């Protein structure tokens, strides 16, 4: 299971005032708020943590088919940083999800998976244009709950895909097709 979330940082800065009174407390745990206040760039930490929660929510929602708005119940912790990538875990309802978050100048793209071994078998796209090449030989569909998947035109087998769009950026993550 995969989930991804992309944030256009310039748009986020226009759309949201996270410094508004009460804002952080509604969606972030006490530990996460501390991470934000301690960060070199607090707004980057806000959107990193938010994208983690959204990416993990997409996995949970794909399984449960239940829509809820409970970001505070997704508890994020960071474990490593390498150049422009940050890794860590998201805990929710006694389960944990691994994430990797890639940072470019104006964009944060976070991918969550049920287990970190799945990172090796993913096709990850981050960019300004809709990634036609990733969807080659496949038809993009949505099930009755609006959850996207791809149908392989040869094998007719469904393949989960996670799609995210914000401002100028698209993020698409899918399992690599085994040949």
């Amino acid at each position, binding site marked *: 299971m995969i989930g991804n979330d992309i944030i256009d940082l310039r748009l*986020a800065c226009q759309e949201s005032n996270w410094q508004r009174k009460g804002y952080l407390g509604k969606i972030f745990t006490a530990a996460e708020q501390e991470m934000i206040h301690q960060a070199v760039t607090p707004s980057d930490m806000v959107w990193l943590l938010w994208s983690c929660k959204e990416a993990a929510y997409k996995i949970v929602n794909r399984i449960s088919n239940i829509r809820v*708005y409970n*970001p*505070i*119940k997704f508890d994020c912790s960071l474990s490593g940083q390498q150049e422009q990538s940050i890794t860590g875990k998201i805990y929710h309802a006694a389960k944990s999800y691994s994430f990797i978050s890639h940072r470019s100048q104006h964009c944060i793209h976070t991918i969550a998976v049920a287990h970190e071994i799945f990172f090796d078998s993913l096709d990850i796209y981050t960019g300004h244009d809709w990634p036609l090449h990733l969807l080659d030989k496949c038809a993009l569909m949505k099930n009755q709950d609006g959850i996207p998947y791809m149908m392989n035109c040869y094998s007719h087998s469904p393949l989960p895909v996670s799609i995210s769009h914000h401002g100028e950026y698209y993020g698409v993550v899918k399992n690599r097709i085994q040949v």
Partner: protein
Amino acid sequence: MDKETLIAQLKEIVKPYAKDQEAWQQINENTDFVKDLKINSANLVDVILDVEEQFNIVIDNEAMEHMLNVKSAIEIIEAKLGGQ
């Protein structure tokens, strides 16, 4: 407060965050904040904070989980106002 008044107040609250203006014009009890009005999930917090301020209520985490559409928002506001 009757339902029409509540919906009218909610309509004004969500106005800055709704990206689908046509759906916003036609807001009603069955309108979904995310699917219909295309409010982004980071702005749902603003809707919740605005509702708290406007009605002078506190929306706890449990109630917040359901703040995804007009119908649930009305139920939550009515319950909180009734409980005061």
